[in-house]
């Protein structure tokens, strides 16, 4: 599964994208798994209320299941326009 990071999430984790092999059932499970890895992940994911997540380029929430998903992206609230 490709995991993408944008804006300050990317900066805190220190990379824009990585491939993760995981059995995590939901986004929240994946967040817990990554946070347990290293401090930089724990810091980036400390407050998921301040984060947004997209699965295969569609916005969703942290309860969403990961089955069949190829691309997960984490980022702060968007500031377009």
């Amino acid at each position: 599964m490709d995991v993408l990071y944008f804006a300050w999430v990317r900066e805190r984790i220190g990379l824009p994208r990585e491939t993760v092999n995981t059995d995590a059932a939901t986004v929240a499970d994946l967040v817990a798994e990554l946070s347990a890895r290293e401090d930089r992940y724990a810091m980036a994911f400390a407050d998921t209320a301040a984060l947004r997540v997209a699965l295969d380029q569609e916005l969703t929430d942290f309860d969403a299941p990961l089955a069949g998903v190829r691309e997960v992206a984490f980022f702060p609230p968007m500031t377009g326009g």
Partner: protein
Amino acid sequence: MSVRVQDAAFDAGQELNRFTKGAAGAGAIVSFTGIVRDLDGGLRHMLIEHYPGMTEKAIGTLVQQARDRWALTDALVIHRYGQLAPGAQIMMVATASAHRADAFAAADFLMDYLKSRAPFWKKEITADGADWVAAKDTDETALTRW
């Protein structure tokens, strides 16, 4: 119907004229242009990051929602990413309709949703450092109008 996500600058006047020429049957054209404001002279430049692939899809979905809701003969969204100087044009939206109310509402709607639902992130680089622009509560609240 046209969505463009690009690094390059665009000419809003030229885009408006081209859009107007193509919008056969329209009686009303509304355009919005967003400009990098120079914050009390302190801004060196703005960096806009985006999510290639998702950006185009998300904007396309918003344009479709606007078309479903209002009688538009055409719509245009251009949004830049990369490094922008103060005074640079970040993005533009244009809508065409037989009647002014639909053109205004659709452009206003697209702007509100582009602000908070299209995957762009702005970073301001000043003499003091660099900061990601925080999403405003008022921008999230604006969505409840629709």
